[in-house]
């Protein structure tokens, strides 16, 4: 049996998956990225291989993606997360023509062509408003875990309007609203709405073409899915594995190479070494 790995080292988390030669996921792992991206990559790889009941030697090919892709020293190839999210999304939802990925500090809108190729993309620039980091600020200010933000926001009855676009100032704005007596769920709903509108703008920039698939860690947030549906006026495909979509796409690229018989980078290096 042939196995391949995809390792997605993002700004906040490292994700990894192992696929078998049929493209079925046989292992997944996730770790927070702390000081060293290279260490996080190594650890998440060891963890995913162990979760798949395999040894590293059994992985035929590894593709690294995410900001830390060049820190994946054991990787055979680097592919950007734009191509990887597109690949992962179209594998699960073949009619995908637009991908929205909300990550830790990057949000990407990707337009996909008829053949599943990336045609265009747009990303947030110089500012983390409209990214997962914005929710991180809310989590910190409200002293709530990230996983509880979405469910609580769905309970809002009178959402407040968040005016700041600065992730740093968002925290003080939240505290200000709470001090005025607004309920946390209403403040949170405002935060979610603020992110959704910024993301929608990014999607329109590449041209919203259905179907749209929502990927990245924030795709697990039900309030965000609901609000994006509302502001984009179209339903969104959401995978149960949305958080791993970059890693899945990377692993699918790895599978292409493994099937084509592409050699390990390490093996090639050994061959050419004097």
């Amino acid at each position, binding site marked *: 049996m042939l196995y391949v790995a995809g390792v997605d080292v993002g700004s906040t988390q490292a994700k990894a998956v192992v696929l078998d030669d049929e493209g079925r996921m046989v292992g997944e792992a996730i770790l927070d990225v702390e000081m060293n991206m290279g260490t996080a990559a190594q650890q998440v790889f060891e963890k995913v291989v162990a979760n798949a009941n395999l040894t590293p030697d059994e992985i035929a090919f590894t593709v690294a993606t995410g900001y830390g892709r060049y820190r994946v020293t054991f990787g055979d190839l680097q592919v950007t997360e734009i191509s990887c999210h597109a690949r992962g999304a179209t594998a699960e939802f073949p009619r995908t023509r637009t991908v929205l990925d909300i990550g830790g500090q990057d949000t990407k809108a990707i337009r996909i062509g008829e053949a599943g*190729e990336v045609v265009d993309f747009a990303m947030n620039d110089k500012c983390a408003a409209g990214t997962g980091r914005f929710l991180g600020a809310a989590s910190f200010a409200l002293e709530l875990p990230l996983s509880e933000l979405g469910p609580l926001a769905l309970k809002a009855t009178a959402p407040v309007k968040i005016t700041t676009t600065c992730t740093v100032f968002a925290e003080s704005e939240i505290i200000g609203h709470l001090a005025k007596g607004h309920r946390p769920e209403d403040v949170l709903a405002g935060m979610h709405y603020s992110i959704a509108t910024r993301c929608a703008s990014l999607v329109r920039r590449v041209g919203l073409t259905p179907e749209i698939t929502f990927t990245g860690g924030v795709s697990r947030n039900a309030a965000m899915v609901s609000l994006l549906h509302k502001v984009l006026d179209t339903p969104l495909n959401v995978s149960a594995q949305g958080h791993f979509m970059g890693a899945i796409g990377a692993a699918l690229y790895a599978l292409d190479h493994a099937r084509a018989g592409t050699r390990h980078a390490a093996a090639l290096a050994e061959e050419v070494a004097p």
Partner: protein
Amino acid sequence: MAQAHVANPAPTVDARTAGQRLVNQWLAHVHTAHERGQPVAYIFVMGNAVEILRSFGFELVFPEINSLQTGVRKMAPDFLAKAEDYGFSPDVCSYVKADVGLMLSDMQHPSGTRIPKPDIAIASSLCNVYIKWAEIWERHFGTPAFVLDIPGKRFATWRPLPGTAQYDADTRWVEGQLRDLIAQCERITGTKFDPDRLAEVESNVNEMIRLWVEILQLNQRRPAPYNSMLDGLTYIGVLNAWRGTPEGVEYMRLLRDEVAGKLARGEGRVAEERFRLIFSGTPCYVNMRRLVELFESHGGVFAASDYLTYAAGGLDSSGLFYDPSRPLESLAEVTTLASQLGLSNHFFSHQTLAQQVKEYGADGIVYHGIKSCRTVATSMADNREYVTSRYGLPTLYIESDLIDPRYWSDAQIKNRVDAFFEVLEQRALVKGGD
């Protein structure tokens, strides 16, 4: 009698060395202008009536070039900080701030040149910052600023072309202002305007532009002999500083021959040219070498750029030439037409870009937005939409600044550039499979 044989001819100077020499020579002239009793004019690169100033013998200072040079020499943060400490907002044009920093540094430029104060400054309406910037000089140095109001931008859907009453009115309006400028130059220099001298300068400009157009066209062939956003930036610096001079003509000829030679020998800018690109927007002088390196590592070369297309004075690649037999009228006409088509007019730039896509065989367009200049990036959204929907051409939008390194994020830019090349690769595969 036959001419004596020269046993040891001087080695041929390459264009790069010649260009560097000319830039240094120009800076040295600027440095000593007042000691030599020569008047100094501060001018911008667009809409500057440089031909008139040259005819009066002004030494030319380009504050935009002074500012970009602080970036190239990695000294911009010191000058920007001085302006910001003084109270300028980080959002203000970084060229303006670097220049204010220079004023606060007693005009001591990192090139070693002490920039003399102007006897006159010329601003035009081609950039909405120019006039305010010139007002700062007027107040700081106590010297006059002359504002040239060029009616380039009239309507979104129509521009006056030769043969229309509006065009005649526009050129008369510009000509009247040029006559006012001449009167002011006569007062400052104490010399009378010489139309023959203006005609001579214009003839030199015509020859430089003829060669410049040729140089740009040579890059339409494969492999592109130069990168329009690296080598090209040196070329354009010389084109600006020596515009209208015999030295400028000589340099352009040398450059044309050198580029043609590379083409004849099949010497491309990159070892393996895989993708030909167009760069739209102004450069990030502080990191241009790095940016070009990111593209060239993927075999991508900027065969053309609208920066070189619009070059000095507004628009120098469209075949607009002076008629030296009627020098002043012709200057007014070319200035008006060039301004209509220049960078300030974002309603028509997509047409030029679309034309270049065909001429240069471009595989994609890279747009570079400037954080401290929202004006220059305003048209990019429309422009991008046009080339993407009309031609299905991949485009990339990246953002940094002219000279402020705080707006450069290497990881972000590299990520976008890598992804752009993945798009180009996938497109080539899909097209190849059709």
